[in-house]
């Protein structure tokens, strides 16, 4: 055993740094694989983002264009003003059902005048080309200006959703055999009208500014009214959650003693931030609508009112704002507080004159992100009646904006996606584009604010 000569040959410990041994190679390969995986993950994320953006834009872009028809209408005095005295009250008695045949007759006349040949010989067979909203356009103008009666006036009216869909490629000839809302002859006529310049696609401002419409008039529907609803909800959220949230955070961060009670509050705030938003909807229904509006009888608190929607979203946004505000306050270095206190400022003065201004960019960023989250929220609105409601009336004032029933943008999109006419599907995607633009711009504002005002120590 003492025979030293029997020691096995040691592997050579001398190695060159220029030569990687097996162990190093393995470690390098591991690192390479990890980098590739990371890149792959990012790449996959980007691919999905591109697919998402592509499908949203390709499905929704159509909603921003709409087909309009130019129809010369002879405003027949025999139909619109039987007594011939141009009395606005009597003219108003002719309902939109009285105007529809005039439009159809006008379109038929124009077709004949232009020499377009069609199998559709009767005016009533042109009904499917013109939107159901068109008679009201004519009626409103005639009521506003009764002198038009007896003249031939050219009106620009919406084409029906089927005609519009045909020109956008959504409605196809081989699929309409059983469709009673459009026929092949009517599509042939549409082609001819496009050639004559009587049917034109234009940018659809009404989609952005208009109100929702009933299921038979997809071509008329717009997201404007629910945008106003969202705006009023965001006002409520901003004016409630910002002061309450900031006050709560300042107290918790700067004044509150460290004890079990404040610990409990902190845990609860973190938990609240993670509560699913539908829970806030149920709470809102019980607290604001059934107790506040019902038991206490506060009449502004009722189903579908943006005020209630705003209150519910405030509850949802508060934890987010409190958490981000506290983080912003914590980020202000203690030396600032100490310096303020050192020159004789009271605690309150040191906070409001020094700490809060320095924390403001962080607070604002958190608030804007919280608002953006609230803007896109649908679930709580389900329960307080903002979904399943047809937002056709834009509010007519500040108070009415808060308390009159309205919808919100995400609720409107959900509502459109549910409807039978495929034209509404396109509008749902279009609504998503508008909502995304809002969210994107809010996030950009948040980033810019942070960039501009952020202080580093």
């Amino acid at each position, binding site marked *: 055993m003492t025979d030293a000569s029997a020691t096995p040959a040691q592997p050579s410990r001398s190695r060159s740094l220029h030569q990687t041994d097996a162990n190093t190679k393995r470690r390098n390969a591991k690192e390479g694989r990890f980098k590739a995986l990371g890149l792959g993950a990012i790449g996959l994320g980007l691919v999905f983002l591109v697919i998402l953006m592509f499908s949203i834009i390709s499905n929704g872009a159509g909603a921003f264009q709409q087909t309009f028809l130019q129809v010369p209408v002879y405003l027949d005095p025999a139909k619109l003003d039987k007594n011939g005295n141009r009395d606005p009250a009597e003219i108003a008695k002719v*309902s*939109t*059902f009285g105007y529809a045949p005039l439009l159809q007759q006008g379109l038929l006349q124009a077709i004949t005048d232009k020499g377009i040949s069609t199998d559709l010989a009767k005016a009533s067979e042109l009904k499917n080309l013109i939107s*159901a909203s068109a008679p*009201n356009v004519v*009626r409103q103008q005639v009521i506003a200006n009764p002198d038009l009666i007896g003249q031939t006036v050219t009106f620009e009216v919406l084409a029906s959703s089927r005609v519009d869909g045909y020109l956008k490629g959504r*409605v*196809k000839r081989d*699929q*309409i*055999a*059983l*469709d*009673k*809302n459009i026929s092949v002859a009517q599509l042939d006529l549409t082609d001819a009208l496009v050639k004559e310049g009587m049917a034109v696609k234009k940018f659809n401002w009404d989609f952005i500014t208009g109100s929702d*419409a*009933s*299921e*038979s*008039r997809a071509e008329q529907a717009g997201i404007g009214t629910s945008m106003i609803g969202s705006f009023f909800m965001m006002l409520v959220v901003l*004016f*409630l959650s910002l*002061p309450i949230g900031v*006050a709560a955070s300042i107290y918790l961060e700067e004044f509150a003693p460290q004890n079990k009670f404040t610990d409990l509050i902190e845990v609860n705030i973190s938990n609240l931030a993670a509560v699913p938003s539908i829970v806030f909807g149920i709470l809102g229904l019980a607290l604001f609508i059934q107790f506040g*509006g*019902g038991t206490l*009888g*506060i*009449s*502004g608190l*009722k*189903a*579908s009112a943006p*005020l209630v929607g705003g209150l519910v979203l405030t509850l949802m946004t508060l934890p987010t704002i409190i958490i981000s505000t506290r983080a912003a306050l914590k980020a202000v270095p203690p030396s600032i507080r100490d310096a303020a206190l050192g020159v004789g400022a009271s605690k309150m003065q040191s906070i*409001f004159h020094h700490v809060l201004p320095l924390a403001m960019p962080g607070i604002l960023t958190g608030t804007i992100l919280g608002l953006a989250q609230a803007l896109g929220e649908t679930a709580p609105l389900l329960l307080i*009646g903002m979904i*399943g*409601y*047809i937002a*056709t*009336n834009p509010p007519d004032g500040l*108070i009415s904006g*808060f*308390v009159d*029933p309205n919808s919100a943008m995400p609720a409107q999109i959900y509502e459109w*996606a*549910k*409807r*039978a*006419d*495929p034209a509404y599907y396109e509008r749902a995607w279009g609504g998503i584009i508008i909502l995304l633009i809002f969210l994107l711009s809010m996030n950009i504002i948040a980033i810019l604010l942070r960039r501009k005002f952020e202080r580093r120590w």
Partner: protein
Amino acid sequence: MNTVKLTASVLAITVASSAGAFARDNIQVAGSSTVLPYASIVAEAFGENFDYPTPVVESGGSSSGLKRFCEGVGENTIDIANASRAIKDSEIETCAANGVADIIQVRIGYDGIVFASQKTGPDFTAFEPADLYNAIGKQVMKDGALVDNTYTNWAEFNADLPDVEIAAFIPGTKHGTREVFEEKVMLQGCEDTGAMEAMVAGGMSEDDAEDACMAVRTDGKSVDIDGDYTETLARINSNPNGVGVFGLAFYENNTGSLKVATMGGVEPNTDTIASGDYPVSRPLYFYIKKAHLGVIPGLKDYAEFFVSDEIAGPDGPLAQYGLVSDPELAETQAMIADEQTMGAAQ
């Protein structure tokens, strides 16, 4: 701090002024999501043609609409409840207990329920109630005995149907459509196949047997859809063998992607449903609080406008959308003109 004070005062003013000054001037409607499209079409035309504001129409289902309707009389309660079924006795009692004694029932027309599949899918072109019962009933007759449903293919019980796997998408239990489907299809199919007879012979009471007939198999071959018809459509689009239950109006708006099947040899369309030849249909209603007539401006005008020939008649916009207009519309019109309540009619 100034912003806080300002905010507080602005909110105080808003709440205070809204609490005092609001006498409601718009009509409020809630209820069935099946009636919603029709009600919104009418509300829109009503707003255009009258000086009243456009009525507020909400959905939420027949039962929730009637529940809100029966909450009481006053500005904070709705004026009209839409329903895809007739009001129940228990609901009338609740209403009466809360002071809603006089209710006007208005039947606006009929809604057909159709069975459709993917346009390019297998040939589901003709169903009998018995076929659907065999496909999705919980207990079916097999070789003369009542057994738990183990059919997996349509062709197993009817050689005329395609030899593909059963995949049925039926409305969930919260839908009014489900009730009609159970009564008009499942119950009928249960009787036709002899399963009901076997159940009664097996010692069940008539009522229990009816309930058992309406039970649906739970092994995944039949899927309850709690959402809307758009969800059913999405399921059908992704499953070529799927058969779904739709409203006639929805089908008529999507003839490009759906193919409808006949029921008992009758093709569903407005004519066959109006004549009663197509078996699976139901009346649609709305209910008006009589106490609100004359208090809420325009309420009676709205009701009369809804059932006028121009709107609810066979050539009106509702029929264009898919409502089967009521052959007895004139009686309904007269009833509204007289403000005839349900009690008086009986």
